[in-house]
Protein backbone atom coordinates (compact mmCIF):
# COMPACT_ATOMS: atom_id res chain seq x y z
CA UNK A 1 0.00 0.00 0.00
CA UNK A 2 2.97 2.24 0.54
CA UNK A 3 5.67 2.11 -2.09
CA UNK A 4 8.81 4.19 -1.73
CA UNK A 5 11.23 4.17 -4.64
CA UNK A 6 14.69 5.64 -4.57
CA UNK A 7 13.54 8.49 -2.38
CA UNK A 8 16.07 11.27 -1.77
CA UNK A 9 15.97 14.61 -0.09
CA UNK A 10 18.66 17.25 0.16
CA UNK A 11 18.59 20.37 2.28
CA UNK A 12 21.17 22.60 0.68
CA UNK A 13 24.28 20.48 0.40
CA UNK A 14 23.18 18.10 3.14
CA UNK A 15 21.67 14.86 1.94
CA UNK A 16 19.07 13.93 4.55
CA UNK A 17 17.62 10.94 2.73
CA UNK A 18 19.62 9.12 0.11
CA UNK A 19 17.99 6.62 -2.22
CA UNK A 20 15.59 4.91 0.16
CA UNK A 21 13.30 2.20 -1.25
CA UNK A 22 10.84 -0.09 0.53
CA UNK A 23 7.28 -1.31 0.44
CA UNK A 24 4.67 -1.78 3.13
CA UNK A 25 1.62 -3.92 2.47
CA UNK A 26 -1.73 -4.22 4.17
CA UNK A 27 -1.43 -6.03 7.49
CA UNK A 28 2.16 -4.97 7.92
CA UNK A 29 3.64 -2.86 10.68
CA UNK A 30 6.97 -1.43 9.66
CA UNK A 31 9.29 -0.24 12.41
CA UNK A 32 11.51 2.60 11.35
CA UNK A 33 14.73 2.64 13.33
CA UNK A 34 17.77 4.80 13.27
CA UNK A 35 19.85 7.26 15.24
CA UNK A 36 18.73 10.87 15.61
CA UNK A 37 19.08 12.78 12.37
CA UNK A 38 19.21 9.62 10.26
CA UNK A 39 16.36 10.82 8.03
CA UNK A 40 13.39 9.03 9.58
CA UNK A 41 11.18 12.07 9.99
CA UNK A 42 12.16 13.47 6.60
CA UNK A 43 11.19 10.20 4.91
CA UNK A 44 7.86 10.16 6.73
CA UNK A 45 7.18 13.77 5.79
CA UNK A 46 7.76 12.93 2.16
CA UNK A 47 5.36 9.98 2.34
CA UNK A 48 2.64 12.20 3.79
CA UNK A 49 3.23 14.83 1.13
CA UNK A 50 4.27 17.51 3.59
CA UNK A 51 7.59 18.03 1.85
CA UNK A 52 8.35 17.18 -1.77
CA UNK A 53 11.23 14.77 -2.44
CA UNK A 54 14.34 15.93 -4.30
CA UNK A 55 14.30 12.70 -6.26
CA UNK A 56 12.43 9.41 -6.30
CA UNK A 57 8.75 8.66 -5.89
CA UNK A 58 6.23 7.67 -3.26
CA UNK A 59 2.89 6.08 -3.94
CA UNK A 60 0.19 5.31 -1.40
CA UNK A 61 -2.71 2.99 -2.25
CA UNK A 62 -1.54 3.02 -5.87
CA UNK A 63 -1.55 6.82 -6.19
CA UNK A 64 1.57 8.93 -6.61
CA UNK A 65 1.87 11.43 -3.77
CA UNK A 66 3.26 14.20 -5.98
CA UNK A 67 0.50 13.90 -8.59
CA UNK A 68 -2.52 13.30 -6.33
CA UNK A 69 -1.61 14.99 -3.05
CA UNK A 70 -5.17 15.50 -1.83
CA UNK A 71 -6.36 11.99 -2.66
CA UNK A 72 -3.32 10.48 -0.97
CA UNK A 73 -3.71 12.63 2.13
CA UNK A 74 -7.26 11.35 2.48
CA UNK A 75 -6.05 7.79 2.99
CA UNK A 76 -3.26 8.64 5.44
CA UNK A 77 -3.42 9.26 9.15
CA UNK A 78 -0.33 11.10 10.35
CA UNK A 79 1.12 11.71 13.79
CA UNK A 80 3.97 14.19 13.34
CA UNK A 81 7.01 14.20 15.59
CA UNK A 82 6.35 15.90 18.96
CA UNK A 83 2.58 15.51 18.38
CA UNK A 84 1.60 19.11 17.64
CA UNK A 85 -1.93 20.36 18.25
CA UNK A 86 -3.80 23.64 18.51
CA UNK A 87 -3.14 24.16 22.19
CA UNK A 88 -5.81 26.78 22.77
CA UNK A 89 -8.57 24.40 21.67
CA UNK A 90 -10.34 21.85 23.80
CA UNK A 91 -9.74 18.19 23.02
CA UNK A 92 -13.28 17.81 21.72
CA UNK A 93 -13.19 20.84 19.42
CA UNK A 94 -9.77 19.82 18.13
CA UNK A 95 -11.04 16.35 17.27
CA UNK A 96 -14.17 17.82 15.71
CA UNK A 97 -11.99 20.08 13.56
CA UNK A 98 -9.88 17.11 12.44
CA UNK A 99 -13.03 15.10 11.66
CA UNK A 100 -14.59 17.92 9.65
CA UNK A 101 -11.38 18.40 7.71
CA UNK A 102 -11.59 14.71 6.85
CA UNK A 103 -15.06 15.25 5.46
CA UNK A 104 -17.00 13.64 8.30
CA UNK A 105 -20.39 15.14 9.15
CA UNK A 106 -23.36 14.45 11.43
CA UNK A 107 -23.64 10.98 12.90
CA UNK A 108 -20.48 9.74 11.13
CA UNK A 109 -18.57 12.55 12.81
CA UNK A 110 -19.97 11.82 16.25
CA UNK A 111 -19.31 8.11 16.05
CA UNK A 112 -15.77 8.72 14.74
CA UNK A 113 -15.05 10.96 17.71
CA UNK A 114 -16.54 8.40 20.12
CA UNK A 115 -14.39 5.68 18.60
CA UNK A 116 -11.06 7.52 18.85
CA UNK A 117 -11.85 8.91 22.29
CA UNK A 118 -12.34 5.36 23.48
CA UNK A 119 -9.26 4.04 21.66
CA UNK A 120 -7.01 6.75 23.06
CA UNK A 121 -8.67 7.00 26.49
CA UNK A 122 -9.56 10.67 26.30
CA UNK A 123 -12.99 10.44 27.99
CA UNK A 124 -11.98 12.42 31.06
CA UNK A 125 -10.27 15.32 29.30
CA UNK A 126 -12.69 16.00 26.43
CA UNK A 127 -13.66 19.43 27.66
CA UNK A 128 -10.19 20.46 28.73
CA UNK A 129 -7.97 22.89 26.84
CA UNK A 130 -5.07 21.00 25.28
CA UNK A 131 -2.70 23.53 26.84
CA UNK A 132 -3.55 22.25 30.31
CA UNK A 133 -3.01 18.56 29.54
CA UNK A 134 -0.05 16.41 30.48
CA UNK A 135 2.32 15.30 27.75
CA UNK A 136 0.79 11.83 27.60
CA UNK A 137 -2.69 13.20 26.99
CA UNK A 138 -1.47 15.69 24.40
CA UNK A 139 0.25 12.91 22.59
CA UNK A 140 -2.83 10.74 22.58
CA UNK A 141 -4.97 13.66 21.44
CA UNK A 142 -2.77 14.01 18.39
CA UNK A 143 -2.84 10.26 17.86
CA UNK A 144 -6.65 10.37 18.03
CA UNK A 145 -6.60 13.01 15.31
CA UNK A 146 -4.58 10.64 13.10
CA UNK A 147 -7.08 7.82 13.60
CA UNK A 148 -10.27 9.82 13.27
CA UNK A 149 -11.03 8.89 9.65
CA UNK A 150 -10.00 5.26 10.14
CA UNK A 151 -7.29 5.57 7.47
CA UNK A 152 -5.87 2.66 5.52
CA UNK A 153 -2.34 3.94 6.05
CA UNK A 154 -0.87 5.22 9.30
CA UNK A 155 2.37 7.15 9.55
CA UNK A 156 3.37 7.58 13.18
CA UNK A 157 6.50 9.53 14.03
CA UNK A 158 7.64 8.40 17.47
CA UNK A 159 4.16 7.51 18.73
CA UNK A 160 5.40 6.43 22.15
CA UNK A 161 7.76 9.33 22.81
CA UNK A 162 7.12 10.95 26.17
CA UNK A 163 4.65 8.34 27.37
CA UNK A 164 5.00 6.45 30.63
CA UNK A 165 5.59 2.66 30.49
CA UNK A 166 1.90 1.84 30.83
CA UNK A 167 0.91 4.21 28.09
CA UNK A 168 3.72 2.93 25.89
CA UNK A 169 2.46 -0.58 26.31
CA UNK A 170 -1.06 0.50 25.41
CA UNK A 171 -0.01 2.35 22.28
CA UNK A 172 2.10 -0.61 21.17
CA UNK A 173 -0.84 -2.94 21.65
CA UNK A 174 -3.03 -0.53 19.71
CA UNK A 175 -0.55 -0.36 16.84
CA UNK A 176 -0.26 -4.12 16.66
CA UNK A 177 -4.02 -4.50 16.64
CA UNK A 178 -4.58 -1.85 13.99
CA UNK A 179 -1.75 -3.30 11.95
CA UNK A 180 -3.85 -6.34 11.18
CA UNK A 181 -6.03 -4.35 8.81
CA UNK A 182 -3.85 -1.36 7.86
CA UNK A 183 -0.41 -0.52 6.59
CA UNK A 184 1.54 1.18 9.36
CA UNK A 185 4.93 2.83 9.51
CA UNK A 186 6.17 3.98 12.87
CA UNK A 187 9.51 5.33 13.95
CA UNK A 188 11.03 4.75 17.34
CA UNK A 189 14.23 4.77 19.34
CA UNK A 190 13.08 1.97 21.57
CA UNK A 191 14.25 -1.30 20.20
CA UNK A 192 11.98 -3.50 22.31
CA UNK A 193 9.08 -1.74 20.64
CA UNK A 194 10.11 -3.19 17.34
CA UNK A 195 9.98 -6.69 18.73
CA UNK A 196 6.68 -5.98 20.46
CA UNK A 197 4.75 -4.40 17.62
CA UNK A 198 6.43 -4.76 14.22
CA UNK A 199 6.15 -7.38 11.55
CA UNK A 200 9.22 -5.90 9.87
CA UNK A 201 11.90 -3.33 10.64
CA UNK A 202 14.11 -1.03 8.64
CA UNK A 203 17.23 0.50 10.07
CA UNK A 204 18.25 3.76 8.49
CA UNK A 205 21.53 5.54 9.03
CA UNK A 206 22.64 8.83 7.50
CA UNK A 207 19.84 8.71 4.97
CA UNK A 208 20.42 5.16 3.76
CA UNK A 209 18.76 1.87 4.61
CA UNK A 210 21.33 -0.33 6.31
CA UNK A 211 19.09 -3.23 7.30
CA UNK A 212 15.64 -4.52 6.38
CA UNK A 213 14.03 -7.65 7.81
CA UNK A 214 11.78 -9.16 10.44
CA UNK A 215 12.83 -8.50 14.04
CA UNK A 216 13.87 -12.14 14.36
CA UNK A 217 16.05 -11.96 11.25
CA UNK A 218 17.73 -8.78 12.43
CA UNK A 219 18.42 -10.22 15.85
CA UNK A 220 19.95 -13.28 14.28
CA UNK A 221 22.48 -11.09 12.50
CA UNK A 222 24.01 -9.95 15.79
CA UNK A 223 26.62 -12.15 17.36
CA UNK A 224 24.88 -11.80 20.72
CA UNK A 225 21.38 -12.30 19.34
CA UNK A 226 20.26 -8.92 20.65
CA UNK A 227 18.64 -6.30 18.46
CA UNK A 228 20.43 -3.53 20.31
CA UNK A 229 23.84 -4.93 19.55
CA UNK A 230 22.96 -5.32 15.91
CA UNK A 231 21.70 -1.73 15.81
CA UNK A 232 24.90 -0.44 17.34
CA UNK A 233 27.06 -2.45 15.01
CA UNK A 234 25.57 -0.99 11.84
CA UNK A 235 24.78 2.62 12.78
CA UNK A 236 26.99 5.41 13.98
CA UNK A 237 26.19 7.73 16.81
CA UNK A 238 25.75 11.29 15.60
CA UNK A 239 28.80 12.48 17.53
CA UNK A 240 30.94 10.02 15.58
CA UNK A 241 29.31 10.97 12.31
CA UNK A 242 29.93 14.66 12.99
CA UNK A 243 33.55 13.90 13.80
CA UNK A 244 34.02 12.05 10.57
CA UNK A 245 32.51 14.91 8.57
Amino acid at each position, binding site marked *: MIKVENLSKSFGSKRAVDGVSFEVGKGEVLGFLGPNGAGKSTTMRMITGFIPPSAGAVSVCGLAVQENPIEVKRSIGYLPEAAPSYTEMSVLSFLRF*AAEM*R*GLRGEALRSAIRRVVELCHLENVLGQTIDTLSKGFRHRTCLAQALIHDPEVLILDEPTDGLDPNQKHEVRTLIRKMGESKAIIFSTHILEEVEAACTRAIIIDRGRIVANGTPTELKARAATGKLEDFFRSITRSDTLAEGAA
Partner: protein
Amino acid sequence: MKGSWAAIRIIAKRELSAYFESPVAYVFLVIFLLLSGFFTFTFGGFFERGEASLAAFFNWLPWLFLFLVPAAGMRLWSEERRLGTIELLLTMPVAAWQAIVGKFLASWLFLVVALALSFPIVATVNWLGDPDNGVIASGYVGAALGAYLAISCLTSALTRNQVIAFILAVVLCLALILVGFSPLTDLLARWASPWLVEAVSKFSVLTHYDGFQKGMLDSRDLLYFLSVMAYALFATGVVIRNHRTG
Protein backbone atom coordinates in the same frame (compact mmCIF):
# COMPACT_ATOMS: atom_id res chain seq x y z
CA MET B 1 -15.43 23.31 -6.17
CA LYS B 2 -17.99 22.68 -3.47
CA GLY B 3 -15.50 20.50 -1.62
CA SER B 4 -12.78 23.14 -1.68
CA TRP B 5 -15.15 25.75 -0.28
CA ALA B 6 -16.07 23.36 2.56
CA ALA B 7 -12.41 23.03 3.57
CA ILE B 8 -11.94 26.80 3.44
CA ARG B 9 -14.98 27.26 5.64
CA ILE B 10 -13.81 24.74 8.23
CA ILE B 11 -10.36 26.32 8.43
CA ALA B 12 -11.85 29.81 8.68
CA LYS B 13 -14.23 28.68 11.41
CA ARG B 14 -11.41 27.22 13.48
CA GLU B 15 -9.23 30.26 13.00
CA LEU B 16 -12.01 32.66 13.92
CA SER B 17 -12.84 30.76 17.09
CA ALA B 18 -9.12 30.75 17.92
CA TYR B 19 -9.32 34.55 18.04
CA PHE B 20 -12.12 34.46 20.55
CA GLU B 21 -10.69 31.57 22.57
CA SER B 22 -7.71 33.71 23.49
CA PRO B 23 -7.82 37.15 25.10
CA VAL B 24 -6.27 38.65 21.96
CA ALA B 25 -9.63 39.30 20.31
CA TYR B 26 -11.06 41.20 23.24
CA VAL B 27 -7.92 43.24 23.83
CA PHE B 28 -7.88 44.09 20.14
CA LEU B 29 -11.53 45.12 20.02
CA VAL B 30 -11.33 47.26 23.15
CA ILE B 31 -8.17 49.03 22.01
CA PHE B 32 -9.56 49.59 18.53
CA LEU B 33 -12.79 51.08 19.85
CA LEU B 34 -11.07 53.24 22.47
CA LEU B 35 -8.50 54.57 20.04
CA SER B 36 -10.92 55.12 17.18
CA GLY B 37 -13.17 57.05 19.57
CA PHE B 38 -10.26 59.05 20.86
CA PHE B 39 -8.94 59.87 17.39
CA THR B 40 -12.37 60.76 16.07
CA PHE B 41 -13.69 62.93 18.88
CA THR B 42 -10.55 64.38 20.48
CA PHE B 43 -7.75 64.31 17.95
CA GLY B 44 -9.79 64.42 14.79
CA GLY B 45 -11.77 67.50 15.89
CA PHE B 46 -15.13 65.80 15.30
CA PHE B 47 -17.14 68.63 16.89
CA GLU B 48 -14.98 71.49 15.62
CA ARG B 49 -15.53 70.43 12.04
CA GLY B 50 -19.12 71.48 12.27
CA GLU B 51 -20.20 68.93 9.69
CA ALA B 52 -22.12 65.72 9.99
CA SER B 53 -19.58 63.27 8.59
CA LEU B 54 -17.18 60.56 9.64
CA ALA B 55 -14.20 62.26 8.00
CA ALA B 56 -12.46 62.48 11.36
CA PHE B 57 -12.89 58.74 11.86
CA PHE B 58 -11.82 57.68 8.37
CA ASN B 59 -8.87 60.08 8.24
CA TRP B 60 -7.25 58.33 11.13
CA LEU B 61 -8.21 54.83 10.18
CA PRO B 62 -5.22 54.06 7.90
CA TRP B 63 -2.89 55.07 10.75
CA LEU B 64 -4.78 53.20 13.43
CA PHE B 65 -4.98 50.09 11.27
CA LEU B 66 -1.26 50.36 10.65
CA PHE B 67 -0.72 48.91 14.13
CA LEU B 68 -3.91 47.03 14.77
CA VAL B 69 -4.21 45.00 11.58
CA PRO B 70 -0.70 43.52 11.83
CA ALA B 71 -1.57 42.66 15.43
CA ALA B 72 -4.63 40.80 14.20
CA GLY B 73 -2.76 39.02 11.41
CA MET B 74 0.58 38.23 12.99
CA ARG B 75 -0.42 34.90 14.46
CA LEU B 76 -2.03 33.42 11.36
CA TRP B 77 0.95 31.39 10.11
CA SER B 78 3.70 32.09 12.61
CA GLU B 79 1.71 30.33 15.31
CA GLU B 80 1.20 27.31 13.04
CA ARG B 81 4.94 27.16 12.53
CA ARG B 82 5.77 27.63 16.19
CA LEU B 83 3.38 24.91 17.36
CA GLY B 84 4.26 22.62 14.45
CA THR B 85 0.57 22.36 13.55
CA ILE B 86 1.38 23.50 10.01
CA GLU B 87 2.48 19.90 9.51
CA LEU B 88 -0.93 18.67 10.64
CA LEU B 89 -2.84 21.21 8.62
CA LEU B 90 -0.99 20.63 5.38
CA THR B 91 -1.14 16.83 5.64
CA MET B 92 -4.90 16.98 5.88
CA PRO B 93 -6.70 16.72 2.54
CA VAL B 94 -6.49 20.42 1.63
CA ALA B 95 -4.39 22.41 -0.79
CA ALA B 96 -2.16 25.11 0.65
CA TRP B 97 -4.16 27.84 -1.10
CA GLN B 98 -7.32 26.70 0.65
CA ALA B 99 -5.61 27.01 4.01
CA ILE B 100 -4.29 30.47 3.07
CA VAL B 101 -7.69 31.71 1.92
CA GLY B 102 -9.43 30.17 4.93
CA LYS B 103 -7.10 31.81 7.39
CA PHE B 104 -7.22 35.13 5.61
CA LEU B 105 -10.99 35.00 5.54
CA ALA B 106 -11.14 34.39 9.29
CA SER B 107 -8.93 37.34 10.14
CA TRP B 108 -10.84 39.48 7.65
CA LEU B 109 -14.15 38.59 9.27
CA PHE B 110 -12.65 39.48 12.61
CA LEU B 111 -11.67 42.87 11.23
CA VAL B 112 -15.18 43.36 9.87
CA VAL B 113 -16.54 42.61 13.35
CA ALA B 114 -14.23 45.28 14.78
CA LEU B 115 -15.35 47.80 12.16
CA ALA B 116 -19.00 46.93 12.76
CA LEU B 117 -18.56 47.58 16.46
CA SER B 118 -17.68 51.19 15.70
CA PHE B 119 -21.39 51.69 14.92
CA PRO B 120 -21.92 54.04 17.90
CA ILE B 121 -19.88 56.66 16.04
CA VAL B 122 -22.19 56.31 13.03
CA ALA B 123 -25.20 56.46 15.33
CA THR B 124 -23.84 59.57 17.04
CA VAL B 125 -23.29 61.45 13.83
CA ASN B 126 -26.75 60.45 12.58
CA TRP B 127 -28.29 61.60 15.83
CA LEU B 128 -26.48 64.93 15.81
CA GLY B 129 -26.98 65.79 12.19
CA ASP B 130 -27.87 64.51 8.78
CA PRO B 131 -24.76 62.89 7.28
CA ASP B 132 -24.47 61.31 3.85
CA ASN B 133 -24.66 57.66 4.82
CA GLY B 134 -23.55 56.63 1.34
CA VAL B 135 -20.19 58.28 1.96
CA ILE B 136 -19.95 56.58 5.33
CA ALA B 137 -20.72 53.21 3.77
CA SER B 138 -18.08 53.73 1.10
CA GLY B 139 -15.54 54.66 3.79
CA TYR B 140 -16.28 51.39 5.54
CA VAL B 141 -16.00 49.41 2.32
CA GLY B 142 -12.57 50.94 1.73
CA ALA B 143 -11.53 50.17 5.29
CA ALA B 144 -12.61 46.58 4.92
CA LEU B 145 -10.46 45.95 1.82
CA GLY B 146 -7.81 43.86 3.44
CA ALA B 147 -4.56 45.11 1.91
CA TYR B 148 -2.82 45.49 5.27
CA LEU B 149 -4.23 42.20 6.38
CA ALA B 150 -2.91 40.30 3.39
CA ILE B 151 0.52 41.83 4.02
CA SER B 152 0.35 40.73 7.66
CA CYS B 153 -0.58 37.28 6.45
CA LEU B 154 2.52 37.25 4.28
CA THR B 155 4.91 38.41 7.00
CA SER B 156 3.48 35.90 9.46
CA ALA B 157 4.30 33.12 7.01
CA LEU B 158 7.90 34.29 6.95
CA THR B 159 8.70 33.60 10.59
CA ARG B 160 7.69 31.54 13.58
CA ASN B 161 8.02 34.59 15.78
CA GLN B 162 4.88 36.70 16.07
CA VAL B 163 6.77 39.82 17.14
CA ILE B 164 8.94 39.73 14.02
CA ALA B 165 5.86 39.13 11.88
CA PHE B 166 4.19 42.15 13.49
CA ILE B 167 7.13 44.50 13.02
CA LEU B 168 7.72 43.43 9.41
CA ALA B 169 4.05 43.99 8.62
CA VAL B 170 4.05 47.44 10.24
CA VAL B 171 7.14 48.47 8.28
CA LEU B 172 5.70 47.26 4.97
CA CYS B 173 2.33 48.88 5.58
CA LEU B 174 4.00 52.08 6.72
CA ALA B 175 5.92 52.16 3.46
CA LEU B 176 2.63 51.80 1.59
CA ILE B 177 1.28 54.79 3.51
CA LEU B 178 4.32 57.03 3.33
CA VAL B 179 4.77 56.96 -0.44
CA GLY B 180 1.52 58.90 -0.63
CA PHE B 181 1.77 60.90 2.60
CA SER B 182 1.73 64.56 1.55
CA PRO B 183 4.55 65.88 3.82
CA LEU B 184 6.79 63.29 2.22
CA THR B 185 5.59 63.63 -1.36
CA ASP B 186 6.06 67.41 -1.05
CA LEU B 187 9.64 66.77 -0.10
CA LEU B 188 10.09 64.50 -3.08
CA ALA B 189 8.48 67.07 -5.37
CA ARG B 190 11.32 69.53 -4.65
CA TRP B 191 13.80 67.63 -6.76
CA ALA B 192 11.90 64.94 -8.63
CA SER B 193 9.80 65.54 -11.69
CA PRO B 194 6.05 65.69 -11.05
CA TRP B 195 5.27 62.52 -12.98
CA LEU B 196 7.64 60.59 -10.74
CA VAL B 197 6.01 61.96 -7.61
CA GLU B 198 2.65 61.03 -8.98
CA ALA B 199 3.78 57.57 -10.02
CA VAL B 200 5.21 56.90 -6.56
CA SER B 201 2.14 58.13 -4.76
CA LYS B 202 0.00 55.85 -6.92
CA PHE B 203 1.41 53.00 -4.84
CA SER B 204 0.09 54.42 -1.61
CA VAL B 205 -2.93 53.21 0.27
CA LEU B 206 -3.65 56.82 1.24
CA THR B 207 -4.03 57.88 -2.39
CA HIS B 208 -6.43 55.05 -3.11
CA TYR B 209 -8.30 55.24 0.15
CA ASP B 210 -9.03 58.92 -0.49
CA GLY B 211 -11.74 58.16 -3.01
CA PHE B 212 -13.54 55.80 -0.65
CA GLN B 213 -13.46 58.44 2.06
CA LYS B 214 -15.11 60.92 -0.25
CA GLY B 215 -17.72 58.42 -1.29
CA MET B 216 -16.36 57.95 -4.79
CA LEU B 217 -16.00 54.29 -5.61
CA ASP B 218 -13.44 54.18 -8.37
CA SER B 219 -12.70 50.84 -10.01
CA ARG B 220 -8.99 51.75 -10.11
CA ASP B 221 -8.90 52.13 -6.31
CA LEU B 222 -10.77 48.89 -5.90
CA LEU B 223 -8.37 47.20 -8.27
CA TYR B 224 -5.41 48.57 -6.31
CA PHE B 225 -6.57 47.07 -3.01
CA LEU B 226 -7.61 43.80 -4.57
CA SER B 227 -4.30 43.41 -6.38
CA VAL B 228 -2.24 44.19 -3.26
CA MET B 229 -4.32 41.58 -1.49
CA ALA B 230 -4.02 38.99 -4.26
CA TYR B 231 -0.31 39.59 -4.61
CA ALA B 232 0.37 39.29 -0.88
CA LEU B 233 -1.69 36.11 -0.58
CA PHE B 234 0.03 34.63 -3.61
CA ALA B 235 3.41 35.48 -2.07
CA THR B 236 2.24 33.79 1.14
CA GLY B 237 1.68 30.64 -0.88
CA VAL B 238 5.19 30.85 -2.34
CA VAL B 239 6.71 31.37 1.11
CA ILE B 240 4.88 28.37 2.52
CA ARG B 241 5.87 26.20 -0.40
CA ASN B 242 9.52 27.21 -0.11
CA HIS B 243 9.47 26.59 3.60
CA ARG B 244 8.33 23.03 2.96
CA THR B 245 10.77 22.46 0.16
CA GLY B 246 13.60 23.30 2.55
